[in-house]
């Protein structure tokens, strides 16, 4: 017996059966299939690509892909010490402090019919970076570029207005020295985002599903060193712990790990995997807003510097995976300080507070990014400062809020900002570390509002000083000035944990950043 609930001739049973079949069909709906066979490298990136234009790139995830699909004049060497090697260039040579000659490899072809890479393209690409119309965020990488002289089809000379020390450290081996054809850029309307008008590197983009996966495939027209893998699958996974689990589940061949996982993986890497710890260039510090009324007296700021037990802070936050730092500039770079000026001294902190008339203590806030290690660090700071009578209220913020706290353009929170634990990353030139703390950066990225003309002048001089020893002295002095201001407590450079399958041999920069096109099969 069938009870009809409608007069339309469709029973509910039939309707539900149809819905179920439609549901299963939708769930298993066709998408795409990966070609069978071939060698595939599966890597995790901490974010999806956002902008592959060398003039407007936004971060490392872009850089990882750009290194694969474009040819720059030079690239960083893989290994444990910072150095570079020519890439699109057959040779590069500094003729004098303001002239750099280069010769390109012949036969580097652009995709999409844009022909062969020439010195004219290099001239266009480098001069485009400083063209005000380009509005490049990376204009400072070529701050001293005057023009590029083209000698012949493959040769040219980079002419600088004055000597520029970062050129060899953080300009020529980076994405700022990528060479693109003028016709392609113009055809794209002067700039592009995630869809390059052409490519020229060892790989090319096969497919991209935003926020899902980017597939690179070997460029058949690439004539220089052939890459090992047929395809590279780049998966954007923001959460490091998820990436670690994905690796342990066999879904990835390479990933960065969280700093807190470093001790565990050092002791016991997953089966079939290798783990390395690389020193990071990043720097973490606690800043003190010197313009906040409570901290206008330098003795109060110095008291905080002496009260914080940096070793305990770093130990609590990174569980033994990272060392305390001596300043902004990491070991291995010119200007690294072997020792800081301030040591943990509670008695001295109390004495300074007494001299400032604050022996009964006071209350202040400590702003942090809501990450586990920052919270742990903040809690130790809170305990340290409680010892000298300062009550600290920890204020965790999500990244969207945090990164606007000290910006004068983003509201008024910079006025009430007091203590802050912050972290910046950098390229392997000391000027990258000091650039953010000049007087011009007050209210932009200089949130401590550290105001030293001497520091600003030294930063400018450091950019043009080519003598490594003299340059190192300048940067040591700059970090001394920062610490003497009472505005900074330098905490750590962190560390980078790299987990990879023993079936591959990764090519890594000294700071652990991957050079994907140079990864090899074991």
């Amino acid at each position, binding site marked *: 017996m069938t009870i009809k609930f409608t007069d339309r001739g469709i029973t509910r049973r039939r309707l539900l059966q149809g819905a179920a079949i439609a549901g299963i069909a939708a769930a298993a709906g066709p*998408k795409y299939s990966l070609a069978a066979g071939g060698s595939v490298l599966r890597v995790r990136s901490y974010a999806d690509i956002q902008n592959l234009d060398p003039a407007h790139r936004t971060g490392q995830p872009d850089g990882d892909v750009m290194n694969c699909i474009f040819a720059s004049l030079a690239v960083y060497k893989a290994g444990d010490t910072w150095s570079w090697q020519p890439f699109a260039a057959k040779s590069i040579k500094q003729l004098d402090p303001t002239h750099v000659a280069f010769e390109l490899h012949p036969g580097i072809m652009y995709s999409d019919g844009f022909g062969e890479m020439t010195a004219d393209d290099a001239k266009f690409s480098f001069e485009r970076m400083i063209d005000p119309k380009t509005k490049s*965020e990376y204009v400072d990488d070529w701050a001293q570029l005057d023009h590029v002289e083209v000698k012949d089809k493959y040769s040219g000379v980079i002419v600088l207005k004055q000597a520029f020390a970062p050129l060899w450290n953080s300009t020529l081996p980076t994405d700022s020295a990528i060479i693109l054809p003028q016709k392609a850029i113009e055809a794209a309307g002067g700039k592009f985002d995630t869809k390059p008008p052409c490519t020229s590197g060892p790989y090319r983009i096969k497919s991209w599903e935003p926020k*899902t996966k980017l597939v690179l495939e070997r460029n058949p027209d690439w004539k220089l060193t052939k890459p090992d893998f047929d395809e590279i699958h780049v998966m954007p996974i923001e959460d490091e712990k*998820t990436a670690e689990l994905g690796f342990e589940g066999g879904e990835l061949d390479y990933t960065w790990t969280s700093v807190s996982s470093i001790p565990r993986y050092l002791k016991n890497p997953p089966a079939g995997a290798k783990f390395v710890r690389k020193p990071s260039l990043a720097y973490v510090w606690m800043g003190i807003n010197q313009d906040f009324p409570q901290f206008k007296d330098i003795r109060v700021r110095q008291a905080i510097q002496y009260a914080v037990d940096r070793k305990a802070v770093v130990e609590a936050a990174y569980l033994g995976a990272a060392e305390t730092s001596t300043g902004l500039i990491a070991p291995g770079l010119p200007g690294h300080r072997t020792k800081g000026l301030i040591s943990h001294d509670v008695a001295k902190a109390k004495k300074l507070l007494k001299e400032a008339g604050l022996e009964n203590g006071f209350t202040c806030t400590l702003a942090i990014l809501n990450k586990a290690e920052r919270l742990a660090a903040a809690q130790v700071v809170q305990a340290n400062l409680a010892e000298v009578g300062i009550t600290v209220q920890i204020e965790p913020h999500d990244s969207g809020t945090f990164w606007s706290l000290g910006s004068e353009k983003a509201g008024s929170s910079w006025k009430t900002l007091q203590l802050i634990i912050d972290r910046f990353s950098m390229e392997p030139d000391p000027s990258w570390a000091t650039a953010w703390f000049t007087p011009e950066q007050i209210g932009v990225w200089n949130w401590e509002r550290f105001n030293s003309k001497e520091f600003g002048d030294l930063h400018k001089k450091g950019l043009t000083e080519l003598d490594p020893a003299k340059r190192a002295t300048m940067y040591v002095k700059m970090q001394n000035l920062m610490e003497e201001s009472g505005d900074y407590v330098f905490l750590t450079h962190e560390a980078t944990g790299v987990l990879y399958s023993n079936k591959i041999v990764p090519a890594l920069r000294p700071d652990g950043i991957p050079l994907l096109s140079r990864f090899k099969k074991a």
Partner: protein
Amino acid sequence: MLTYAVKRLGLALAVVGAVIAVVFVMIYVIPGDPAAVALGPRASPALVAELRQRMGLDRPLPIQIVRFYGSVLSGHLGNDILSNESVLTIILGLMPHTLRLILGAMSWSILLGIPLGCLSAMRPGSIFDRITAVLSVSVIAVPAFVIAIYALLIFSIGLHWFPAIGAGEDPMDELYHLVLPSLAIGLGWVGYIARMLRASILDVQGENHVRTARAFGLSERKIVFDYVLRIAILPTLTVLGIGIGQMLSSAVFAEIVFARPGIGKLVYDAIITRNYPIVTGTVLVTTAFFVLVNLIADLFIAWLDPRVRYSLQR
């Protein structure tokens, strides 16, 4: 019936419009500068200011809302401030992943919840009923992200039975990747549906037509599945319609834990980075989807249940 459908549709549009206005106000008051995020730390203040102007962020809030409504009506949800991709394209690209996830979760909840509810109702007070009651309450009480993490640790990392991350490459692989995340979301609903259906069946079993069927000597199984369940399942359909919203929010956790692409993770990342076009676009689409599903559920019930239909006709 048509009047009812038109009224419900009007209400649905009003809800979507109101939600967008609320979201705009919320993102307006929270601190954070999307222009600074988009351009990165090396951008000069002048460049940031220029982008803010281009994005219309320097305009008063009411004007921003009106402009957004205008662009929605013209079928444009704006561009991602980071990649400059069309927001609609991004959402449409990711929506199928989330729909599959929710469909999978609903499948778990229906395939397990309905039989458990029926069997419990057929033997109320039995050991099976009691065990089902305890398990149902337990899985209802455990948040989806806890189930997701333990499922991942046990079945992916420990036993290597299922993949840990991603969404798969081909249809079968996608189904394989769907098992754990959909189970994590759907498990709570298994318990919920089982308990609700049990109560509903016991309620319907006392009605006259069921008593008549018993008097005719029909088997208990036939009575439950052919006469009781057809009526008792209607409230479950309503709840499943509302449950879509709950599943969408649970999908955020499942997509993060299993590193799956989807609109849940998309909106989470967008909020963190103050990617306002993505936030407003995604909220608009998910709200419209949620309202649409509930509208369909209501119309479906009105169509299926003669009592509702007759009440509307009156």
